[in-house]
Each structure stands twice: as C-alpha cells, then as structure tokens.
C-alpha cells in the first residue's frame, strides 16, 4: 500500500467507526427516548401503557381549570373526548381556557394524566399543528389561526 492509500484507508475506517457508533446510539435512543403525541381520542382508543411518557394536545376546556395552590387540574379536549390533567407548578404565561395546549407526562391507571411539562406556545396566534390536526379530525377546525 502506498502511504496515500493507507491514509485514505485510515480516514475511511475512522468515518465508518464514527458513523457506526452514532447509528448504534441513535437507534438505542430512538427506541427509548422518543415521545409520541396523542390526541385525547387517540389516548382513549389506543390504550397507551400506564406510566409511558407521552404528549397529549388539544384545547383547554372552558371552565375546567381548578387551581389549589400550586396544583392545577384542568381538562384537555379535542371536542369529542376529554382527558383530565393534573399539574404542579407555574403555568406558562400563555396558558388559557379555550386555547391550544400540549401536555407532556403519563397516564395513571385511573386515566388521570400527570403532566410534568405544559407547553402553551409562545404566540397566541399559534396553534400546535398536532392540535390543529386533532381538531380537524374531529371536525371542529375553525379555519386558519395564523395571520
């Protein structure tokens, strides 16, 4: 082997090794670390395992928000199905009844959703695309939300 092909070989081996390690890490992480999104209807029909980390999204049902100190209970709806959510903490500034919201957490065996993160978006014009889709599916989509 000439020194040049030898160097090329090292480079290729290095590249292959790095990509191999990266692929292994990515595959392992994709299996465990990906968070799936469900609409309230999906959540009911698809029997998500208790304790599995997921996201749900929809509208915060009008009149459903109950605050007891730092604990907040509310319901997320896609207008056909409703999920009760409990959350401890300071709600995002844009959390509001009737607005789109995404909650991350897991369901317990009584179908209560324990949220560890509430994502209300940075902009009131914005509707999470997942929520928009869920609303479209249930026929409750009221046209464009963006300007």
């Amino acid at each position, binding site marked *: 082997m000439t*020194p040049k092909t030898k*160097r090329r070989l090292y480079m290729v081996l290095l590249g292959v090794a790095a990509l191999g390690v*990266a692929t292994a*890490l990515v595959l392992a*992480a994709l299996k465990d670390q*990906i968070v799936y999104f469900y609409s309230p209807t999906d959540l009911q029909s698809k029997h998500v395992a208790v304790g599995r980390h997921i996201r749900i999204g929809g509208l915060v049902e009008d009149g459903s928000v109950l*605050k007891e100190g*730092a604990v907040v209970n509310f319901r997320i709806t896609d207008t056909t199905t409703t999920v009760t959510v409990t959350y401890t903490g300071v709600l995002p500034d844009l959390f509001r009844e009737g607005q789109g919201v995404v909650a991350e957490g897991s369901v317990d065996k009584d179908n209560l959703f324990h949220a560890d993160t509430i994502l209300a978006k940075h902009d009131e014009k914005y509707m999470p695309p997942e929520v928009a889709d869920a609303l479209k599916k249930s026929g409750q989509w009221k046209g464009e939300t963006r300007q």
Partner: protein
Amino acid sequence: MITEFGHFALVMALAVAVLQASLPMVGAARHNGTLMAFAAPAAVTQALLVILAFAALTHAFVTSDFSVAVVAQNSHSLKPMLYKVAGVWGNHEGSLLLWILILAVFGAAVALVGTNLPPLLKARALAVQAMISVGFILFILLTSNPFHRLDPPPLDGNGLNPLLQDPGLAFHPPMLYLGYVGFSMAFSFAVAGLIEGKVDSAWARWVRPWTLVAWIALTLGITGGSWWAYYTLGWGGWWYWDPTENASFMPWLAGTALLHSASVVEKRGALKSWTVFLAIVTFGFSLLGTFLVRSGVLTSVHSFASDPARGAFILLLLLLMVGGSFILFAVRAPSMQAGGLFAPLSREGSLLFNNVMMATGAATVLLGTLYPLIADALDMGKVSVGPPFFNAVFLPLMTPMIIAMAAGPMLSWKRADLKGLSQRLSGMLAVSVLVALAVWFAQGGSAGPWWAAGGFALAAWLMVGTAWDMIERIRLFRQPLGLSWRRAKGMPRASWGMAAAHFGVGLVILGITGSSAWKLEAIQNQHLNQTVSLGGWDLTLKGVEENHGPNYTASRATFDLTRDGKQIATLSPEKRQFLMPPRPATNAAIRTSLWGDIYVVVGDQAGDDSWVTRLYVNPMVPWMWIGAALMAAGGALSLTDLRHRIGVPKAAPSKGKTP
C-alpha cells in the same frame, strides 16, 4: 415616500446583484480583466443600496408609520424606542432584510479589504456571494415584502410580542445572523475554489479569518440566545434542544470543524476536499436553519409567521445552492491535488478525528431535529424528539472528542511520538481521576448522578492539558521567568487564542455538568411572610405590589433571600401584563454569584395573601457564560493574529512572519 425609496433601493440592489453574479463569472472564464474588475465596485454598491433599504425600514419603525404593514403588525406607538429600533428585525420580513444586509456587507468587506486577493478567486467568490443575494432578495421581494403599504392605515399598531421586548432582541438576532451569514463567505470561496480547481494554503489563509468572524459571532449569538431564554422564559433552563436551538447549533458544529480543518490546509496543505466539503455543509446548515425557522415546519418562538409559500421558496434556494455546489464538488474535487501526508498519530490526525466526531455529532443533531418531520411524512405517528434523545446520543459522541481535543495541540505535525508525551498524559489522567473522586465524595457518592464526576474529570483533563501545553511551550518554571515571558510574547496570538478557546470549552463543560447535576427546584403556594428553604437558602415573600412600565403593568413581588439568618439579597421578580398585544410575560429575578444562580419566579395569585412561586438553585450556570465568552475572546485573539496575514500572498516576504 421614504418607504417607497427603500423598496426602490432594494430592487436596485437586486439588479446590481444580478450583474455581479454574472459578469465577473464570465470575465473569469474568459480571463477578461474588465469584467472581473466589475465585482468589487458592484459588491460595494449593492451593500450601500441594501443599507439604504434597511435604513428606510428602520425609519418607518422609529416614526411608527403604521401605513407600512410590517410596522402596523409588529409595532406600537407606546413601545420604548429601543424596541422600535430592534423591532425592525423582530418580525419575519425585517429579519430577512437584516439577513440580506449582513450578506451584502460581508461581500462589500471582501471587496474592500481583499485588495490583495488573486483576481480570479476574488471575482468568482464575489459572484457566488451575489448569487446568494439574488436568491434572498427575490425571496423577500416576492414573498415577504417589508415595504408593503396598508390603505387605510390603522390608528395604532398591534405591538411586539412581549417575549421579544427585551434588550436581548438588540443583540441576539444580529449576532446570530452575523454568524449564519458569515459562513456564506467560506461557501463562496469554496465554490470559487472548486470552479478554479485550486485550493491551497493561500486559499485557506483567506477563508479562515472570515470563518473565524462568523464563528465568534455565532458563538456569542447562541450564548446570548441561551442566556436570554434562561432569564426570560421562567423555567430555569438554558437549553432545550429545541429545533431552532439545533438550527443554530448545527452550523456552529460544522463551522468549528471547518475552522480546524482549514488550519490543516493552511499549515500542511492536506484535507483540502474535506475542508471544501465542510464549507459547503456549514453554509448549508445555515440555510437549513433559516428554512426550519422561517418556514414554520417546526414551530417555536422564532417562527413569526408561517407561510407554506415562503417555506417552499427557501427550500428551493437551499436545494439550488447546496445541491448545485455538491454537484460541482463531486465533479471537481477528485481532480484537486492531494496535499501533505501524515501519520494517524499527528496533529493533522487528531484534527481529522475531531472533525469526524463533530460532523457525526452535527449529523445526529440533524437527524433528531428532522425525525419528527420524517416520522410524520412516513405516517409513523406524531413524535417529539427532546433532550433525552440528544443527551443519549450527542454526549457520548462528544466525550472522545474532548479527550482528543486536549492531546491534539501537543502532537507535532505530520508524525507524533506518544512516548514523549506519556508523562504529561499520565499527569493529566491523574488529575482527572482525583477531580472525579473529589466530586464523587463531595456530592455524597451515589446521592448525585454518576456522570457529574465524569463531566468534571473530562473538563479537568481538557483544562489541565491545555494549560500544561502552554506552560511547556513557554518553558515556564524551566528557565528564568523573564525568558518565559519573552517566549510567551513571541508566541503567535493564534496559539493563545486556541488555548483560551479550549479552556473556555472546559469551563462550559463544568457549567453544564454542575447545573444539570445539582439543580434544585421548589414550586409552592407561598403566603406572605412565609419562608421557603432550598439547598440552605431561605426565601421569604415580603409583598406583592402593582408596578407600571411604559407599555405594561406588573405584579412585582419582593423576596428576602437569606442564608443562615444572614440577609443576602432582595429579589423582585415580576409578572407583567402587556397592553398591546394584551399578553402576560414573566420576568425572573436572578441573584448571580460565581457558584451559581438563585432564580425566583412569581406566578398567579392563588389566594388572598398567597402566590404560586418557583425557586431554583442553579449551581455553576455562570461558568457556561464565562466559558463561552472566553471561547469567543480566544477566537477574537486569533483574529488579531490573522489580521497581518489577510491578503498577504504567500510569496510576499515583506509583511508578517511566517506562522
């Protein structure tokens, strides 16, 4: 009138850019000096026209001319002057105009500073730069015209998103764009080099300073954005692997790799094709970032307005520019002369290793960012890829890179001898192990996460290695101090810059590790005069009162922060209610010391005399800011070294010493 004038200037800039993109290219192909010489004055004219356009838009914002649609939608007469000016780029149209402004100014800078550039390279690079201009000016004129008028004009504007009403808006977007767009220079030089079929150390000497400017700006821009998010979003975190964060991080990773591989081209003439490839990829990531953020396919605070037409347009630009240059690369790269040989264990070898790891790291970030889109397109369900994925993939990839990063500068070019370094390396290892043990015992063994010790050991390895290398180079303690001092002064500034930047990375790792491992959080319903204790700190709510800002009202809470009964500070977080648009915003109160931050947020009123409050103890967060600042400072120090060499052709013996 001024607005129409700005619009006209932008159209003129497009015309100039079209000529600048074509004539010098033809001239370079035919070796026609007149046509080639057109490039430089055209670049300057184009920049002046874009500056006029930008000034016209700024004028509309400052005078609150609500007959201009962008101003009406994103400004308000009551807004403080700072945000009227910074608000120019606090929206889609204006931020794109800023993008083009920076692009044009970079082109003009090359035209003005690069008087010594080889004429062929200069003509072609400026022509490529103008092609990018054409694409983006067309984009803004066709889909996002900032000079669009409203008739009749509204009485007042809709106001600016309160989240953006922060001094950070004046700093973060321009810095970030300076970084994004700055990489266009490396791209233009790469394409010009490919067309010419010549990439050599003189080429690398030209590319490096521009890349370095972009890298410094991007480093500061990302850090500034992270800091801004940290104090304004109220959740006590500084990085969430959000798509837009990734969009800025990918070009940073690729740009860092480019910076290092360009130094190999410059010093040794090796890794040429790889460097050209990286230059294309880096700017490709910048464009991809612009696409992801502007198209609205991924949503976040940065997507001002999503419009499928805009997304499609940027995607088309991205495909044309990156696709075209990749095809050019595939055709021309094999014919490029290969450079100097080197053994795997050498400075070049270590740089190549780090390059491969960084590129792989950037690829995994790309995959994680796009995976939700891919999964959605393939009907694999709606997913989100968050911090757990990136932590599990990215951090293991970076660990060997950091290990090699400490040793790389110690290796000699071409072929290195590990034996001569064994004493140093074992010394570094010993210090790292000691640090790991100390951290392990200090956190009470498995009471804290195991990786805290690992992170500290890694940082210690890097910082000790970097410092040790500099000590060896100036022969500190081996000879009289005066001699060492003279050696230190005689060393190239680029070496000091590198050492500072690498040391800064160590500080960033310490900050990330410490703040992730030992963060404390308490959320409660806190009554007046009630005390909450966390990590030895006592926080007492003293009162909440109404407060008025220029365009908002706020509930301002007052807390006493004490430790062991001793008053440390008074903290006053606010919950603000903006008048226009009517929206709330959080203003955290942070007490910073070298050891960490105490971070307090006040939420809604929960009872007659109680509020929901959130208290965080974030250890070592300031170390990240200091470390990142040190990285940027190291870059700036190298830049002052490179200044001698900008435009100095290889053969000119009169100016500057050979590095």
